[in-house]
């Protein structure tokens, strides 16, 4: 490591708890507004005070109340949970690997989960949601394992470029297997809709399933956050400080697989949330993962709920796939990262 980059590293080690608290509180308030907007928007426009009364004085005789309760609220909540899951998965990965391009989308995790789900669609079309989630976890774990192992087998370890290349290749492989299976079993259109990503059609069932896993993932992530901060300073530093890095990395990976796998099972492989939000969060709150993890959860929720609102507003009454919206925002960000770091990768 040259002197210059060392100085850079030292400069980057900052911590801004005040900013973090502002983001947490402001973000949660903004999230509440976004959720309310998301609930009131749709084919039948419902006013905000109807939303209010549906939540606090629910009356099953009113159609609007039913729409809100059965369709709109689950959709908004699933969006929030999925956004939080992807964002936290991304920040844990970027912290553990110190790799700016790490994230569930680039690392083949989403592709793995997607592959597992397209198998489920073809062979067990009536699979209940809770088993579908398990399927998704297994696929996510497999995708991460293949990408990570192959990327780090080469001399010089897992550089960002290798990670991106291995992830792209694993993604292409699993994606084409998935499309082969779905074309053969004539589930292609279902699978593509699902791949496009979206939270429309979410039910309370999905909210319940997601809530359990996302809360577990976030909780364990918070417990781990101190260790991740240490690990993000470099493996040697972490070992020197007496950390059991194998244990931390194993638990961290399991958390990532759970968070991303649960997200994919509910909303499809929505890309770029897990890549982008952690970068923005780190830029705002500094290097302490005790703050990064909760802040990125809030910002991820906010981002995905807003993206879902946008998806409904671009071309009504048709819905734009949410994956397209996140890609439109995410690709320029990815290109920015590639241009910024492209030379030392």
């Amino acid at each position: 490591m040259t002197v210059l980059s060392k100085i850079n590293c030292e400069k980057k080690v900052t911590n801004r708890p005040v900013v973090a608290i502002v983001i947490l509180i402001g973000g949660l308030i903004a999230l509440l507004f976004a959720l309310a907007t998301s609930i009131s928007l749709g084919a039948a426009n419902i006013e905000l005070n109807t939303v209010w009364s549906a939540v606090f004085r629910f009356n099953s005789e009113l159609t609007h109340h039913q729409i809100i309760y059965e369709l709109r609220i689950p959709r908004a909540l699933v969006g929030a949970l999925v956004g939080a899951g992807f964002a936290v998965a991304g920040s844990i990965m970027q912290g553990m690997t110190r790799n700016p391009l790490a994230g569930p989308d680039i690392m083949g995790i989403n592709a793995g989960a997607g592959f597992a789900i397209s198998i489920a669609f073809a062979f067990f079309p009536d699979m209940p949601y809770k088993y579908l989630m398990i399927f998704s976890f297994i696929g996510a774990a497999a995708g991460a394992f293949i990408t990570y192992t192959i990327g780090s087998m080469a001399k010089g370890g897992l550089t960002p470029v290798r990670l991106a290349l291995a992830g792209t290749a694993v993604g292409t492989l699993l994606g084409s297997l998935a499309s082969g299976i779905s074309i053969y079993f004539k589930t292609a259109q279902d699978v593509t809709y699902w791949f496009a990503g979206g939270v429309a059609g979410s039910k309370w069932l999905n909210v319940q399933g997601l809530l359990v896993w996302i809360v577990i993932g976030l909780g364990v992530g918070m417990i781990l956050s101190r260790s991740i901060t240490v690990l993000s300073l470099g493996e040697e530093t972490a070992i020197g400080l007496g950390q059991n890095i194998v244990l931390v990395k194993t638990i961290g990976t399991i958390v990532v697989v759970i968070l991303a796998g649960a997200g994919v099972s509910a909303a499809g492989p929505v890309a770029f949330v897990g890549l982008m939000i952690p970068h923005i969060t780190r830029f705002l709150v500094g290097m302490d993962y005790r703050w990064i993890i909760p802040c990125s959860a809030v910002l991820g929720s906010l981002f995905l709920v807003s993206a879902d609102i946008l998806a409904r507003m671009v071309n009504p009454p048709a819905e734009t796939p949410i994956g397209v919206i996140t890609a439109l925002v995410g690709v320029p960000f990815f290109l920015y990262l590639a241009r910024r770091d492209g030379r030392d990768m």
Partner: protein
Amino acid sequence: MEDVKVFSYKQMISSKKNKVIKLTGIMLLLLIATFILSMNLGVIRLSPWEVTKTFFGFGTHKQQLILFDFRLPRIVIAILIGAGLSVSGAIMQGISRNPLADPGILGINAGAGFAVVTFILFFTRVANQSIFLLPLVALVGGFTAAILIYTLSIKNGAVSPVRMILVGIGIGMLFNAFILLFQMKMQYHQFMSAAIWLAGSIYGSNWKFVLALLPWILILLPYALYKANILNVMNLGEQNATGLGVMIERERFLLSITAVALASACVSIGGGISFVGLVSPHLARRLVGPRHEYLIPVSAVIGSILLLVSDMFARQLLAPNEIPTGIVVAVIGAPYFLYLLARSDS
């Protein structure tokens, strides 16, 4: 003393040449063998004798129909696409001096695919009637992607290969998102044909497709071969190449156009077939070394064999149903790519 040295050097060159000629011969024989095998296979099996008989005009009407109208165009298309994508990959690896460059990974295919899907969606009738337009449409998409990738990779007036690959991956994701967007708008039948096309399929090919693709291959392949020496010099590095009198920017520009045009024309007919452009130049380099006058023809032949064999699997694996050829290619190609990646130096 000097004479001896020159002599041995010449001898070395000529023995290398012999080896290359032998290898090319073996490859061509392999290609012919696959060609014949491919003609025999299918839902209705034709014995080698029947194929030969039909080939020379002595078969029954039905046999002639199967062979000339269904199997042969498909086989020819596979050979052309395999050759075109491989040479495109060989050129890209040559000019970027990056062994992992490939039109699929760099997002060129996604750009071409996006243009074709847009065209199919908005001009369905025109697209069905005039297949000859598709390569041109794909070309526009491929070039748009290439220009975007190139300009976005420039930083401080220089293009680093690594940055170019990352930018290519990003641009590919962007175009794929747009493809997805348009796919959502399609009717079921449009959707299925687009899905199968995107997965990379060469079935349903007829002689029209061959005619649409052939001119591109016939012009661009010899041109690439003609530029082989320039590619060799480029491999020595920019400064050496300039020192040897190569106008590097101009040549790189011309060769890039050639590579993008080849890839786009192939994508317009074959859809998203990735990894051929990556795998065959690598295998060829192992066999005949890095000199492009050998590398280009050998990788073209290897690419043809690869695609032809993949297509046979695609037809036979789940017969009578077909799987898109691109899927078989990806199943063969992606592991090889990952293997290369795992062995690469930083």
